[in-house]
């Protein structure tokens, strides 16, 4: 089965510019997560979708970050305008939200964002 796909793999932008990341979860996975991983730290959840509804966006900086999951499949995460501290790896993960699999999350390869 195909894994979680993300694009682009790398992105370099200047501060105050905007950027968008795309994620295609594993087919049939109802739950989709976006994590931010700053260098030297573990990933931190930004937003969680269940189908096309938001379950948790408590740590999403809503003044500059937005995310959508149209039709409950693909998702896009946008940053506008970007700040230097947004430099990080953005990881997308998906799961079946099934207790039998311990709600195992499958991760994509991530997008490394550098803001200069």
């Amino acid at each position, binding site marked *: 089965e195909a894994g979680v796909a993300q694009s682009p793999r790398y992105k370099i932008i200047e501060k105050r510019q905007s950027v968008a990341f795309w994620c295609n979860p594993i087919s049939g996975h109802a*739950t989709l*997560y976006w*994590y931010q991983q700053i260098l*030297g*730290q*573990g*990933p*931190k*959840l930004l937003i*969680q979708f269940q189908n096309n509804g938001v*379950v*948790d966006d408590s740590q999403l900086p809503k003044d500059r970050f937005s995310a959508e999951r149209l039709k409950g499949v693909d998702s896009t995460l946008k940053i506008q305008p970007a700040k230097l501290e947004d430099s990080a*790896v953005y*990881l997308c*993960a998906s*799961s079946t*939200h099934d*207790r039998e699999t*311990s*709600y*195992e*999350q499958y*991760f*994509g*390869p*991530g997008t*490394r964002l550098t803001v200069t």
Partner: protein
Amino acid sequence: AQTVTQSQPEMSVQEAETVTLSCTYDTSESDYYLFWYKQPPSRQMILVIRQEAYKQQNATENRFSVNFQKAAKSFSLKISDSQLGDAAMYFCASSDMGGSEKLVFGKGTKLTVNP
């Protein structure tokens, strides 16, 4: 709120030897899962092993096993017969079943395997 602490920023082991990575956590939930993830330089997070909190038996997956001490809120990972391919960042994570089941990660331990 959940917290996960990994107190060893870096560890090293000789090939074929055994190494143990430490993790402590805190949660107010009674129903939760614990995980160890591996992240090689390619950045792809790979699940190594998982433990359901209600199970007393420690989980094992081939050369990987955990020592789950629920009362002490400790969840260490033991890697036996270490291989060069085990070199990576290892993250401990917890997931509460009472909320969104989101993963809360520690800061990670960088494991180096020496030939």
